[in-house]
């Protein structure tokens, strides 16, 4: 009789130092940005915001092996709710962020319930439509979103009257949030819920035969993923102080997919590594001017040739992704 990992407790494996290398890399990059500040801090800050988004995307696409091209819709909901409530109605960033995340999760529940009946390419097309619809709403609902004019004057994140305005302060805040997200992802992966997702990822029919409520678990993964996306959207608007529809456009979908695959889909460290690499690479090639995209594209192709399962998987113990 074969014992499925989805119904047994995970075995404890000894901590391997090589597995810590991705985290060490991230720590060095963030530490350098804190030390230098300015430009480096801005690039790494954006990377960390994307890391939150991609961690959520990884729950749905990596752990549950589903496809969603529409997570930018939930980032837009989180970002715009935060922006409108703080800049227009004078709310504090924290309650605005919480409400933004709640709104995104509620929207994900309404959308996900019917949409997740789709599979494969149809699910991909359906979720792509969600992202496009959300983008159109941010452009057209001008009385609230101000269309392409965008919303300015969004206050920086802060708690109890203390605003985090410095580069280093924001980096510390974002690093803590990313660490918490990665920790949550690691815990989820090893939990009963994570093992159920793993079973769904392997075969939905087999998971169903094992008594796993596939629809429910897929929906829960979708909701969690939407929550992470909304958190990232909200963080973005408070860090930059401005939001306009382009921020949550198709570009975001492409960039985050690249981050997920370069970092390593289905791994815990992958989203952070992918976000850092994909954010840093274009800056590294900025001096190439008109050939920047060419160099960046070539570097990405090389990465995917030599690390097809993502960079983080290079450091994972054999047999584990």
């Amino acid at each position, binding site marked *: 009789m074969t014992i499925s990992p989805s119904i047994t407790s995970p075995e404890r494996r000894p901590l391997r130092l090589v597995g810590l290398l991705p985290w060490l890399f991230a720590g060095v990059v963030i530490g350098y940005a804190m030390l230098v500040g300015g430009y480096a801090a801005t690039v790494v800050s954006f990377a960390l915001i994307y890391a939150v988004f991609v961690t959520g995307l990884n729950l749905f696409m990596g752990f549950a092996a589903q496809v969603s091209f529409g997570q930018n819709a939930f980032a837009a909901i989180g970002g715009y709710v935060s922006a409108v409530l703080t800049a227009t109605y004078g709310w504090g960033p924290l309650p605005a962020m919480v409400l933004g995340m709640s709104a995104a999760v509620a929207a994900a529940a309404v959308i996900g319930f019917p949409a997740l009946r789709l599979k494969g390419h149809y699910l991909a097309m359906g979720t792509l439509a969600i992202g496009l619809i959300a983008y159109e709403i941010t*452009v*057209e609902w001008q009385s609230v979103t101000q269309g*392409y004019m*965008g919303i300015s004057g969004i206050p920086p994140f802060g708690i109890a009257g203390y605003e985090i305005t410095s580069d280093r302060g924001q980096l510390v805040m974002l690093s803590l949030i990313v660490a918490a997200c990665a920790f949550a992802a690691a815990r989820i992966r090893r939990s009963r819920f994570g093992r159920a997702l793993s079973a769904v990822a392997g075969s939905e029919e087999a998971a169903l035969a094992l008594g796993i409520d596939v629809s429910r678990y897929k929906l829960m993964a979708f909701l969690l993923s939407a929550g992470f996306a909304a958190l990232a959207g909200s963080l973005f608007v408070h860090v930059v102080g*401005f939001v306009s529809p*382009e921020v949550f456009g198709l570009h975001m979908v492409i960039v985050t997919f690249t981050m997920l695959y370069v970092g390593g889909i289905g791994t815990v460290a992958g989203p952070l590594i992918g976000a850092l690499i994909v954010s840093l690479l274009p*800056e590294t090639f900025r001096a190439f001017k008109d050939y920047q995209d060419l160099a960046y594209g070539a570097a990405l192709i090389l990465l995917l040739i030599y690390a097809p399962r993502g960079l983080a998987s290079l450091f994972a113990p054999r047999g584990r992704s």
Partner: protein
Amino acid sequence: MMKHKVIAAGFAACVALAAPQIAGAQEAYKIGVSAGLTGYAATVDRAWRDGVELAAAAVNAKGGVMGRKIQVVVEDNRSEPQEAVTVYRKMLSSDKVEAFVSGCVSAGNFAAAGLLQRAKVPMMLCSILPTQPEHLQWAFTTLPPAGFEVDKRLEYLKEKTQIRKIAVLHDPTPYANLQKGVAERNAAKYGLEVVSIEQYKQDDADLSVQISKARSAGAGAILKIGLGGTTLTAAKNIKQLGADMLLLTSLEDLAVFGPVAEVLGDKFFFVASPSQVYEALPEGALKAGIKAFLDPWREKFRDRDPNWASRGWDGVMLTVAAIEQAKSFDGEKLRAAYEELKGFQGTTGVYNFRPDLHQGITDNPFVLATIQDGKVKVVQ
């Protein structure tokens, strides 16, 4: 005694030799350009960048500004606000840029406005101005008010045609929305009625629905507001529908208008900036101002449209004038000097800035033109 004289002469010779090097070694004055060299703003912002670089070369050929050569640092913001924040940050902290003459990506300039305010570095823009009062303090623009392009067309319709019902067809960009608002407000002043307002997207391949609605509402002319290939699409749709309507479009690259004129003939008019109709201008300060830019422009770029580049040129020349007026390169003093620039003759018109007015063009510089026999002809 002789020995002392030789030493003194040697010292003097050394100083004389070293002096030009010391003067020449004075650090260049860095002007940053955040421009959408790729993405939706590429056509406009590449021209803007070229105008900025041309102006910097012209200033440097005359010895620079207050003894310092101008160095232009250009970064591509990909027409995205997030990328704009990154490149502004790079130019501020790594390149140590002291002033910005940035392109037409409004959202990018808005997103970075807070950074510049905190760094006390002013920016002269191609785009509309940020809306936050504290950001507005550090931002200035070469862009004429949105109403000017609209008023010129309404004026023509009132004075030269019998048309009294018009339609507005616009894209969703901030500048187009501002113009749409002006058209709604000002039409009555010219005895015109706006009977249809329709929006389209920049990548729409067909506008016949919007045009049919305008025609059935009784519009005799369409005011099209927005850039890109949709002008030709609108012209083709008007012809396909057999609609007896005039098409009056906003400011655009002249290269776009040739094919449109071939489709609509004498039913097509467009707003043109002074540099686009240079040959038709009367002699005077404006023509002389444009000539200073247009001669090197044509030498380098031949018959490429000069409109956006001419405002990039103005952006640099305004900055140079403000530095010379302030007698300082300091950001705060430069900002204050911009606000005091009056009667500056640029290529787009005369700039008159005030502390409460950071949009310097105050008199309508535009003309209405058409294309006859392949040549631009001013009609209003």
